């Protein structure tokens, strides 16, 4: 019985490490862990509008795959998530003019998880979106 458990847990951790290594090259363990946690939260809070691959939907919901937009607006991302946004913006060469409702119930660490997932999986970044960055971004709103 014990042996079984060992074999199973060994293969699971092998699988996990292969997954992490193959999906996220050159990413620290911390960043990878943030991204894993962020994926679950993304599915619950963002995927309906922004899509499973961050592809967006028509010109209703913008894609989250525009690395340039994400980099240029990095300091605002947390406040977009928490407080929402509206007005015309240009993402991936298209104009969007709709409203995103803020998701107030998310904590700072949860926002850090989500944004690490978004910026390293859909965007091309390799570093953690830290809790400090979240705090900094939310400052203007409190």
């Amino acid at each position, binding site marked *: 019985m014990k042996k079984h458990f060992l074999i199973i847990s060994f293969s699971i951790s092998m699988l996990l490490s292969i997954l992490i290594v193959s999906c996220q090259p050159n990413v620290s363990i911390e960043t990878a862990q943030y991204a894993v946690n962020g994926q679950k939260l993304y599915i619950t809070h963002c*995927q*309906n*509008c922004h*899509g499973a691959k961050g592809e967006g*939907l*028509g*010109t*209703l*919901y913008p894609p989250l795959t525009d690395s340039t937009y994400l980099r240029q607006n990095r300091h605002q991302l947390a406040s977009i998530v928490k407080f929402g946004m509206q007005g015309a913006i240009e993402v991936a060469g298209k104009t969007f003019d*709709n409203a995103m*409702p803020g998701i107030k119930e998310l904590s700072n660490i949860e926002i850090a998880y989500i944004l690490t997932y978004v910026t390293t999986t859909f965007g091309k970044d390799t570093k953690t979106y830290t809790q400090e960055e979240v705090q900094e971004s939310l400052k203007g709103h409190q």
Partner: protein
Amino acid sequence: MKSYLKFNFIALAISVFLISCSSNGNEKKLPYIGESTVNEKTVDGQTVTDTIPYAIPSFSFLNQDSVMITDKTFENKIFIANFFFTNCPSICPTMQRNLLQVYEKYKDDDRVAFLSHSIDFKYDSPAVLKSYAEKLGVTDDRWQFVMGSKKDIYGMADSYFVYTKEDETAPGGYDHQGYFMLIDKNKHIRGAYDGTLIDQIDLLLADMEVLLKEQ
């Protein structure tokens, strides 16, 4: 005892296999959903029963071009009906993303149509629906977005067996189910699919092919 159970399970698996194989031979038929009416009449002294499947009632609603459309608009077409609203933050984006795939698959096919009813009778005017349709990527009248009075739209939802309710505590102010209802040329309901689940969309696509082959 254990081996007996195991045996039972194997037997079950084999019979499921056999059943699914044998039904492969004859064509798949879609069910009729809803309670049918049975008419009895006497022919040559014998009672014969005539079963008429449930059909959705006739309707008329204003569409995204401010044109009144009715059940006649869908004459000789199969169509998919659902309920949504443009400001819906929860299930609607997923639902409409999935329905858009079906719409795009049947591009240039006049036998298939789409009908989205807005349950936000306060905000979703034809102009709002028009802008929504364009942003979603709907460019022709094969996909109708309609509005109507609260009574008419919510009553219609009941006729499709889809739950809808104005509810302040629900995200966006309305609570509703995300079903896609598949309607045949004679307005009978032939399938119900969870519009938020991608494998249900595969089932819908398969069933539409079955329905298109019918008479």
